[in-house]
């Protein structure tokens, strides 16, 4: 079974490379077998189109080619040659003899160099694809002409964008959005992890440069006695995994139990009860979590009640509490448990909704036949309901686990400003015992401008997620029932 699962992911990857391979093969054939104009297309992209009387297209392609060349000369050449050093000229004030004023010199900005070089690479890649594609097209046109087929005019080409090529019209903008706001940032993150971009190397006043693997070495405990990132990293990573495990399973089991309870025949007004539970998740998290944080604060209402009923005193006597209040969200141990409990509060109704949806689609014929065969209620539950529920919602457990690894809101809103660490080694790396990798990363960027370490942590989170993601991905491809309804 494991081998089969591997195949599905491998097949997807293989398919991807096959598509690239056939693209290059087409290009090769076009270059070898094409006539003079197809070959001329290698230099002047519009050539093939112009020969086949697609003049508008030829003009557009020529303009595009000129634009790319201009972009390269005027824009990219300012940045790309410097990518090896990320800039050498520091910002300085220079006294200009002509204007009698002190002005900034023509300095390098490491970050713009990095970003715009990356941007240039993406533009060049896109331009290369267009270039290859138009050579292939030129060859296709040549063949069409030889066979005496009709060649589309520009008007017909335009119209095809609302007909058989409508998908291009539909997909261009969304794909562009994903490329610019998801793919390029991820690439940028990977590059920054190999530089020393931090508070002491902030463009535009300072330069930063490539440092190889040293950020990762720091993160994994190397780098001498002065750095404590290795110490903090192991603890934060440990808590992230423990949290993700408990947060996923408690809400999953709780959600299933609650939905079974609500969907039982004994329940009166099930819709009303369901609505009441949903109210908890319908309130935005920044309201509900910030409220709960104050509900359980050191001088908060729960502490007053515990004091009044003598719980605080009891806990102090058995040594669980050393302060005059219960540090629900401000001491390690207590805070860890409380965060998981509070997460049950907001997570269970959500899982309940999903489980309810699944229970409603329970195959009725199976239940009927089981009843006819004289199965008891418990047997039906154990042999039919439960396996079905687990089968349908099981794969989602993995995605939930990954989501919980990155569950920023719960941790940040509950502990920011409230929890201060007393562990000096943790504090030195700006981490807290209750931090997840993502909240730590967020604090490093926002408050300490330590971009290099934040990026390195980001990559580690990426790799952890990727491992779990691949497992989930295989499951999903296997469960791909597309087309069965069509």
């Amino acid at each position, binding site marked *: 079974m494991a081998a089969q699962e591997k195949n599905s992911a491998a097949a997807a990857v293989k*398919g991807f490379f096959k*598509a690239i391979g056939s693209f290059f093969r087409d290009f090769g054939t076009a270059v070898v077998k094409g006539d003079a104009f197809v070959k001329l297309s290698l230099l002047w992209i519009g050539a093939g189109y112009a020969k086949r009387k697609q003049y508008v297209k030829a003009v557009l392609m020529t303009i595009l080619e000129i634009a790319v060349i201009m972009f390269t000369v005027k824009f990219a050449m300012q940045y790309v040659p410097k990518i090896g050093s990320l800039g050498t000229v520091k910002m300085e004030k220079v006294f200009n003899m002509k204007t009698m004023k002190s002005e900034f010199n023509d300095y390098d900005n490491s970050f713009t160099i990095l*970003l715009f070089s990356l941007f240039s690479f993406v533009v060049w890649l896109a331009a290369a694809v267009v270039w290859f594609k138009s050579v292939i097209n030129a060859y296709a046109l040549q063949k069409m002409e030889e066979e005496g087929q009709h060649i589309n005019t520009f008007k017909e080409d335009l*119209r095809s964008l609302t*007909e*058989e090529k*409508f*998908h291009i*019209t539909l*997909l261009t903008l*969304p*794909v562009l*959005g994903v490329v610019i*706001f*998801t793919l*390029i*940032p991820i690439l*940028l*993150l990977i590059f*920054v992890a190999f530089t020393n971009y931090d508070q002491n190397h902030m463009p535009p006043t300072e330069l930063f440069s490539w440092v190889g693997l040293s950020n990762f070495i720091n993160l994994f405990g190397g780098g001498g006695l002065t750095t404590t990132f290795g110490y903090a990293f192991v603890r934060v990573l440990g808590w992230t995994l423990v949290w993700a495990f408990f947060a996923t399973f408690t809400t999953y089991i709780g959600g299933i139990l609650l939905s079974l*309870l*609500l969907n*039982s025949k*004994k*329940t*009166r007004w099930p819709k009303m*009860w369901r609505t*009441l*539970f949903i*109210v908890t*998740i*319908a*309130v*935005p998290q*920044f309201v*509900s979590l910030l*409220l709960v944080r*104050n509900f359980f604060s050191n001088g*908060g*209402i729960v502490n*007053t009640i515990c004091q009044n009923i003598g719980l605080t005193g009891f806990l102090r006597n058995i040594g669980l509490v050393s302060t005059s209040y219960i540090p629900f969200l401000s001491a390690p141990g207590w805070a860890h448990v409380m965060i998981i409990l509070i997460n049950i*509060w907001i997570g269970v109704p959500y899982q309940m909704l999903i489980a309810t949806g699944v229970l*409603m689609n329970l195959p009725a014929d199976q239940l009927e036949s089981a009843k006819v065969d004289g199965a008891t209620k418990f047997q039906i539950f154990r042999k039919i309901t439960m396996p079905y529920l687990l089968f349908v919602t099981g794969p989602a457990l993995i995605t939930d686990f*990954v*989501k919980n690894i*990155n569950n*920023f809101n719960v941790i*940040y809103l509950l502990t920011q*400003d409230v929890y201060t660490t007393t562990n000096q080694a943790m504090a030195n790396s700006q981490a807290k015992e209750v931090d997840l990798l*993502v909240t730590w990363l*967020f604090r490093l960027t*926002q408050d300490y401008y330590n971009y290099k370490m934040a990026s390195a942590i*980001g990559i580690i989170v*990426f790799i952890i*997620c990727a491992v779990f993601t691949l497992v*989930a991905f295989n499951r999903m*491809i296997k469960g791909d029932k*597309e087309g069965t*309804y*069509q």
Partner: protein
Amino acid sequence: MKKMKDSRTSSIVLHNGLIAALALFWLIPIIWLVCTSFSAYTGMNTSTFFPKEWSAANYLKLFHPDSVAQFPQWFFNTFVIACFTCVISTMFVLMVAYATSMMRFKMRKPLMNMAVILNLFPGMLAMIAVYFTLKSFNLTNSYAGLIMVYSASSGLGYLIAKGFFDTVPRALCEAARIDGCNEARIFFRIVLPMSRPIVVYTVISSFLVPWMDFVYAKMILNAGISDRYTVAIGLYKMLDKSLINSYFTQFCAGGVLVSIPISILFMIMQKFYVEGITGGAVKG
């Protein structure tokens, strides 16, 4: 016979009692939120669950903004951002869903596989890099930047809408094609009107994104200018250590006010979601 009926009734009472107890437990913080918002005292009530004196002053104060609390302005800001996000995201989602569901082209499978992989990587991770990029284009502390962050990658969330489009009968589209309809007309005139539940679901869920979000707003609107905040950031700032004692009850009032419309939309969305899924199944 009567005894058996009695035990059944008592078990029903017990069952519903358990649910009621759970529901009450779940609602305690919400009840506390509503009660506190009507407190006459400005700070947190720490001694009793219910406020000692009741008053609606907090709600009135929300509409007379001072330098810290500018609730109407925040509400307006968030509303503007939400409208733009809603339009762009809905378009993107429906466009991608239609293309992947109704049309067949060479890059379809590779694109869908890419989307699955990207979808499973939480957007959270690209966050800091997005921040760098926006900063170098001077788009931090601007609504344009925030709207782009919310809506640019929304095309990835196309799967639910695609699942619905998959169930629209092919015969109808084929008939339209034979009658000379082009794809664009089929999309606007046939598929969209037939998919009302999923369109409503997409509109509401994308409208809710800016209202529910905290992280991106916190990251991008970081200059500390109060009248540029969204509701989330504004309310969060009210609970600063130096402000909490004079603004806690106002925070509760603001929380209640913003939760009411959001909760209603959320409930409607749930309904349409279920309708979209089951309605689609029946048609198929």
